[in-house]
């Protein structure tokens, strides 16, 4: 045990060196200081605990904590502000800090400490919530990961609403509300139990391509052991829950980004993963939920944006699978689950997606079509410049509408214009603040 203790204490010293080296990096935000202090404090308490460990079990536990801290420090070495879209992160953090809070010794509703980094891969959008706080005095850390190559693709970043769902689900403060007001409504019908879900998967009425997927799976996988050996039913539930969270936070942009990303990673749209339910289920209940929430409202026929908004929703409907097997929830189930979620998010503004007026979209979309970043600015009739607050999610929605209705406009240009708009809108909001 003495050798292990000596090794871990040496590792504490190594980590302290590593931590000091992170100060050489330009994080570009005030977070670097808080991060440094937080990690230093954790390192000091771990060093003391390792030195005082009385038995191998206690030493092993502290070693695990040290391992986690080492991972965190190395991750944050890569968190330079140049690697991700800071205007999007600025706005996203406002939502995450509002809903991901805990009661700590520092006070009620203490926001989690959020760090952002970029990594490789197309689908590396992640949020890693810390399982537990190491001490009552400390904040829980949320690490948000963006795909580095998609830095400017802010329209797709709406998918982070789903990842935020994982953090909210793990937040002890919301567990009860999420269980009582959301979980019980999802776990009905096809999703009432692992047996019910497995029976649906192996139903004789399942579409042929889904049966083909099952046929290509290991022969040992059967209906009665699907959720015992091959897939995790609770993980599927969490994915479904997080999809609905993403929708209620980001609105139509979330549906569009999920359709685009999921079908890009699984073009056949068939089958499922050990931790993820069938892609086609997910897209169907998202499209149904968007309707239930009234996000698909259309302006009158004569409205200048009617055709554009129609084009957006018509495009999304192409992702719907028409076989009834793919619709696993009733509208009533979704209505109750979404209502429960809205009740919770309402209490933590600006978490819930604010549905824009058609006038708002009528201002933003034409700006984008004219290749101008869509922001709350106009020249009034009296000739004076007029600025107004615009939620960044409305900028994203206007981007998706433009993408659907202007196929000739390059996607990277739409994204960069929207990113520029989010940055400009932050400046507008600062100028409007008292």
């Amino acid at each position, binding site marked *: 045990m003495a050798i292990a203790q000596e090794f871990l204490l040496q590792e504490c010293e190594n980590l302290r060196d590593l931590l000091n080296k992170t100060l050489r990096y330009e994080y570009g935000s005030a977070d670097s200081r808080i991060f440094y202090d937080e990690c230093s404090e954790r390192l000091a308490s771990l060093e003391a605990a390792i030195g005082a460990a009385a038995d191998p079990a206690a030493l092993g536990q502290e070693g695990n904590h040290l391992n986690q801290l080492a991972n965190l420090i190395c991750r944050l070495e890569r968190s330079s*502000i140049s690697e991700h879209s800071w205007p999007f992160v600025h706005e996203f953090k406002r939502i995450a800090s509002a809903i991901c809070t805990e009661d700590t010794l520092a006070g009620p509703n203490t926001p989690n400490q959020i760090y952002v980094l970029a990594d490789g891969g197309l689908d590396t959008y992640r949020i890693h919530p810390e399982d537990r706080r190491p001490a009552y005095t400390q904040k829980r850390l949320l690490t948000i990961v963006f795909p580095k190559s998609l830095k400017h693709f802010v329209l797709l970043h709406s998918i982070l609403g789903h990842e935020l769902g994982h953090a909210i689900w793990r937040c002890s403060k919301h567990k009860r509300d999420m269980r009582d007001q959301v979980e019980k409504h999802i776990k009905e019908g096809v999703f009432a139990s692992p047996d019910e879900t497995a029976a649906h998967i192996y139903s004789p009425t399942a579409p042929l391509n889904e049966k083909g997927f099952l046929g290509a799976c290991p022969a040992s996988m059967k209906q009665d052991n699907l959720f015992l050996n091959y897939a995790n039913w609770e993980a599927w539930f969490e994915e479904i829950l997080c999809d609905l969270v993403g929708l209620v936070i980001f609105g139509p942009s979330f549906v569009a980004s999920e359709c685009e990303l999921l079908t890009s990673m699984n073009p056949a749209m068939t089958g499922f993963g050990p931790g993820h339910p069938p892609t086609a289920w997910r897209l169907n209940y998202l499209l149904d939920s968007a309707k239930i929430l009234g996000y698909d409202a259309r302006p009158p026929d004569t409205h200048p944006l009617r055709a554009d908004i129609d084009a957006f929703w018509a495009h999304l409907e192409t992702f719907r699978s028409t076989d009834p097997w793919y619709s696993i929830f009733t509208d009533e189930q979704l209505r109750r689950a979404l209502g429960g979620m809205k009740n919770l998010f309402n209490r933590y503004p600006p978490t819930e997606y604010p549905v824009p007026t058609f006038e708002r979209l009528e201002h933003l979309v034409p700006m984008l079509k004219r290749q101008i970043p869509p922001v709350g600015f106009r020249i009034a009739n009296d000739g004076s410049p007029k600025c107004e607050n615009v939620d960044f999610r409305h900028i994203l929605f206007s981007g998706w509408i433009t993408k659907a209705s202007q196929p000739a406009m390059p996607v990277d240009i739409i994204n960069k214009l929207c990113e520029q708009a989010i*940055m400009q809108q*932050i*400046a507008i909001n600062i100028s409007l603040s008292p």
Partner: protein
Amino acid sequence: MAALSRSSILARLKLADNLVISPILADSQLGDSSIDLRMGTVALVARAGGQPTVDPAIQLRTNNDAHASTERREQKHERFDVPFGHSFLLHPGSLLLVPTLEWVKIPADLQGVVTARSSWAREGLNIATATIINPGYQGIVTLELANFGEIPIKLYPGLRIAQIAFYELRSDDPAADKSHLDRSQFKMSFEPQAGKIADGDEKFLSNQAPP
């Protein structure tokens, strides 16, 4: 060539598909014959160790070597994101490229001219050259900031540091001018970039590698 007055600028800004300066955060940004421009949130500063000299002939020689030319271009400047509320220190004698906060679109019959604001110039901050913005241009405007004073200047995104004035152009062949402009559809600038100093002057540049 006549400069636009405040009322003419406003009249143009109100028209669809004409002059665009967006956003204008305060009425005080509008001068009698110009609009103040604010500093954006990116800073490009030349790296002293990045390149031995600025030599257009070297740019030309390395054009056939994608790795070398890209490496030289990328290493010439260090790029910083500077969010609102943060600052960037411009030392005496240093050159800094920053974008404007505003998005600018210049119609076919106008030319924009960007200069320093006199209040900042008195502190030593200068726009290195008067930047001409050509008709048809759309995007941010790159400002080449230099500190001619003797003490460092702290720059904050959102500060009004430059101004743009507009001049009407005379055109002898509007159709030919329009056809030339239309070729640049979807070309726009989102960030400052290093200049292409060798383009078009190849015949004047030595192809010999230095001894």
